[in-house]
């Protein structure tokens, strides 16, 4: 009876561990996969580890995560310990008030803490901006920076803020257990307060400090939500990088990172546990007890040489700390940088290396998910981009809100190569702010092996026969725009009834379970893997998908489609104007345009590149390009005539789009 209960309980524990570890084991196994799938095994390989080590984004974010976690742990352990001592000697009522406030960040959902800190920082920056402008105006002894943005500093502050409560929570019980008279006794016996603290109090509360520090470190390392809201755009912890990667085409580089992380932690845990077991064994048989290392160390440290060593270590640590901080600040100041924000899979990454090698300017390349998310980032003060690549209608909105800076076209001679068709378009009629980057169409991508018959209408996206096989595009303008086109309305309609009618199409399809999900760049993975049959997406991206799944087809529906231009612009007050213009000029060049056309599948507005591309393709691949594919990439004028460009809509229509879009998700 006893025995069987024991077996039963062990089976349950084993099942729990199986549940916890099976996904981790799979992650690890597929990090050695030859192919790029996380579900199909293609043989053993280590190349994902190599490519991970070459991935600057990953390496930098690992470094950032460690730096922030270590610094935050160090500072919050120190501050938390003294705060706990202080709290503990307060009268009870005041202590309880402070402890209640102290518990707020622990009780609150992370997202509330993150959001409130984000709003606080942004409000502070506004206040600071006014203050600095005033001070710089009235005196000239020193210049204060007027423009602060979210970044490393705010990230660190946020981490310290959510770590301190955990330290206090762990130190406080130890303080409560300690006999209050001990400190008094030590001081009566001639110790100074400092000596009493080091020799009496610290040893008593040390276990609490250590476990507090450990928990703080764990919390910092594992945190995603608070970092996501407080780090801004140019600082990225590993968790944020991973989140960004999961939204795009996922490569097993992620698996390689997690394997390395897992192994590191595993080794650390084994070392700690073996140490503890040894100590326990020693405690159990004191006869074989050698003087423990700790004792010997302590004795050594109390000698004169020991004290010098102690000072030396402290000084070295301080120097390291100062060096790291100054390195970080120096790096951001001395090397010329340009911060670029674009879309996922939207550049030939070799171009970044080439530009850096040619100009010595460091490119901080980031991606946003859609025009709407980029706009949110800009508005919430989280972004310190110089160059952005929004689409037509968003550019018009940004210009209207005074968020873009006029370009000096003398610094961008390659603008002359842009085909006149793509200049002075409706979003920037006098062409003062933009240099076009790509142009393409939004159409329907489908997998004929999974559905009956060819797709010719937007209606296929809402057809009940395709239930569960359709991916809806995850941004309001495109999704509602498609339904408007299906109904035969203009995509730029301001008629509320028409927009609501389009919404009803989406809503009904959604209620009938037609949509499998809402995706942006996850569409690559899902369509290529045959996990969905129909999606609407951009022609350029269809061409990249085709390389991984030959079944896929692209069609511009009979009702017409949307054609768009994405153009490079510089944000108002961008700190790196000169570098930004150099980047724009480089990207607009014929060479870069050709490389980009080939890599991302989007047509360039550069007239030379458009002309030379078929020859370029033939030279590269040794065969002429399929004319059908060329027509998908470079939409012929007669097809373009059936397409409509998005225009900026008045604020009340935008608000309606936002409201309906959220409502659709409910």
């Amino acid at each position: 009876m006893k025995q069987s209960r024991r077996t039963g309980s062990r089976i349950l524990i084993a099942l729990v561990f199986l549940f916890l570890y099976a996904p981790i084991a799979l992650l690890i196994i597929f990090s050695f996969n030859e192919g790029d799938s996380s579900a199909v095994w293609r043989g053993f390989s280590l190349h994902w580890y190599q490519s991970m080590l070459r991935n600057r984004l990953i390496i930098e974010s690992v470094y950032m995560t460690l730096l922030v976690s270590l610094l935050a742990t160090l500072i919050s352990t120190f501050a938390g310990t003294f705060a706990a001592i202080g709290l503990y000697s307060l009268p009870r009522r005041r202590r309880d008030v402070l402890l209640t406030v102290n518990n707020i960040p622990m009780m609150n959902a992370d997202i509330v803490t993150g959001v409130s800190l984000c709003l606080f920082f942004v409000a502070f920056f506004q206040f600071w901006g006014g203050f600095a402008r005033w001070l710089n105006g009235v005196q000239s002894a020193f210049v204060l920076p007027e423009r602060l943005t979210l970044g490393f500093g705010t990230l660190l502050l946020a981490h310290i803020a959510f770590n301190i409560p955990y330290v206090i929570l762990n130190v406080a019980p130890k303080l409560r257990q300690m006999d209050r008279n001990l400190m008094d006794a030590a001081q009566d016996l001639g110790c100074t307060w400092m000596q009493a603290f080091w020799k009496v109090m610290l040893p008593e509360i040390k276990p609490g400090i250590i476990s507090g520090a450990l928990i703080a470190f764990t919390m910092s390392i594992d945190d995603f939500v608070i970092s996501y809201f407080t780090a801004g755009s140019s600082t990225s912890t590993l968790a944020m990088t991973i989140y960004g990667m999961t939204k795009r085409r996922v490569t097993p580089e992620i698996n390689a990172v997690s394997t390395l992380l897992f192994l590191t932690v595993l080794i650390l845990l084994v070392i700690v546990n073996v140490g503890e077991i040894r100590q326990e064994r020693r405690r159990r048989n004191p006869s074989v007890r050698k003087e423990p290392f700790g004792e010997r160390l302590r004795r050594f440290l109390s000698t004169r040489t020991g004290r010098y060593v102690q000072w030396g270590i402290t000084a070295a640590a301080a120097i390291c700390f100062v060096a790291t901080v100054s390195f970080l600040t120096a790096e951001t100041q001395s090397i010329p940088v340009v911060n670029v924000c674009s879309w996922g899979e939207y550049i030939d990454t070799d171009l970044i290396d080439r530009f850096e090698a040619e100009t010595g300017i460091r490119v901080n390349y980031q991606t946003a998910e859609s025009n709407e998310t980029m706009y949110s980032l800009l508005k919430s003060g989280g972004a310190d981009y110089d160059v952005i690549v929004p689409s037509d209608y968003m550019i018009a909105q940004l210009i209207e809100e005074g968020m873009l800076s006029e370009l000096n076209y003398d610094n961008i001679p390659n603008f002359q190569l842009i085909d006149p068709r793509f200049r002075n378009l409706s979003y920037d009629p006098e062409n003062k702010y933009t240099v076009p980057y790509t142009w393409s169409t939004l159409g329907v991508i489908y997998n004929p092996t999974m559905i009956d018959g060819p797709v010719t209408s937007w209606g296929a996206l809402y057809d009940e026969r395709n239930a569960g096989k359709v991916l809806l595009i995850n941004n309001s303008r495109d999704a509602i725009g498609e339904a408007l086109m299906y109904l035969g309305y203009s995509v730029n309609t301001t008629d509320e009834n028409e927009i609501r009618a389009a919404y009803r199409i989406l809503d009904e399809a959604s209620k009938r379970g037609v949509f499998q999900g809402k995706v942006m760049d996850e569409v690559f993975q899902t369509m290529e893997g045959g996990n969905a049959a129909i999606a609407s997406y951009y022609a350029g991206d269809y061409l990249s998908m085709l390389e991984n799944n030959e079944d896929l087809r692209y069609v511009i529906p009979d009702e017409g489609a949307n054609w768009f231009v994405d153009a490079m612009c510089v944000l108002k007050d961008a700190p790196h104007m000169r570098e930004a213009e150099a980047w724009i000029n480089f990207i607009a060049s014929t060479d870069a345009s050709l490389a980009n056309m080939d890599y991302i599948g989007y047509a360039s507005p550069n007239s030379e590149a458009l002309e030379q591309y078929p020859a370029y393709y033939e030279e590269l691949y040794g065969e002429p390009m399929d004319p059908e594919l060329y027509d998908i990439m470079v939409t012929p004028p007669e097809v373009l005539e059936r397409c409509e460009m998005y225009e900026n809509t008045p604020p009340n229509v935008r608000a309606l789009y936002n409201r309906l879009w959220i409502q659709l998700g409910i």
Partner: protein
Amino acid sequence: MKRKLSLLAAPYAVWLFLLVVIPILIMAVYAFTTSDSAATLENFMDMGIYASVFVRSFRLAAIATLICLLIGYPAAYFMAGEGPGFQRVALALIMLPMWMNFLLRTYSWMAILENNGLLNQLFQKIGLFSFLSGITGEEAQAFQMLRTPGAVTLGMVYNYLPFMILPIYSVILKLDSQLLEAARDLGANSVQVFWRVILPLSLPGVLSGVTMVFVPSVSTFAISRLLGGGTQMMLGDLIEQQFLGGAYNPHLGAAISMVMMVIVVLCMALMNHFGEGEEQAVML
């Protein structure tokens, strides 16, 4: 002397005021204003249309918490009954995944649950689909598992189960064995000992476990985004949408955050009222 020490609390009080109290006040200001900084209650009036998101969030989080409790309590209870060596290893194994990023752990479920994912491949191999189509006559090639409420709940259970096991385990471990002996001596059988002694005494652990699973579950946006595929909008997604997502409106976002905060605090206060609020049982 006492007075001097209490000075140490002053900087922390200032810090708390700056980085805890003021941010929440600013959030409140946002919630009660419009973008033209005029005072308004509109943000709260509009909240009715999001009722279903509130319901879904609280329902899924409650289900996940319940499942965590049903798995976590027995696991913690049995673990505490094992030898010290076993316990040490088991404890380390439960903590270990927490050091790996939770997004990675969640992401690995995507590969398992996809239509062409590992689980569906497995079902295919063992002939489950041909078996099923033999019965129902309908042809099925895969179960839609990803992008369903079930997947989101699974993600929550998977990520937060350790937070349930650890506090319960540490409370059970500290139970006075003499109490159990006394109960047995007084004639209680093992079921009675469990229900009338162990369970009530381990309640503080259960309460902190429930808090630590429920609060992050109800406010998650990454899990619902990855495993729900945008079809299972939760409160976290709704808030994220208003700040960094596709529908910029921080005023509405702040209002939703406020309401969520109040409801969560009320839930927790209510729960702690039933089990006497023992905050020390939290964490390890």
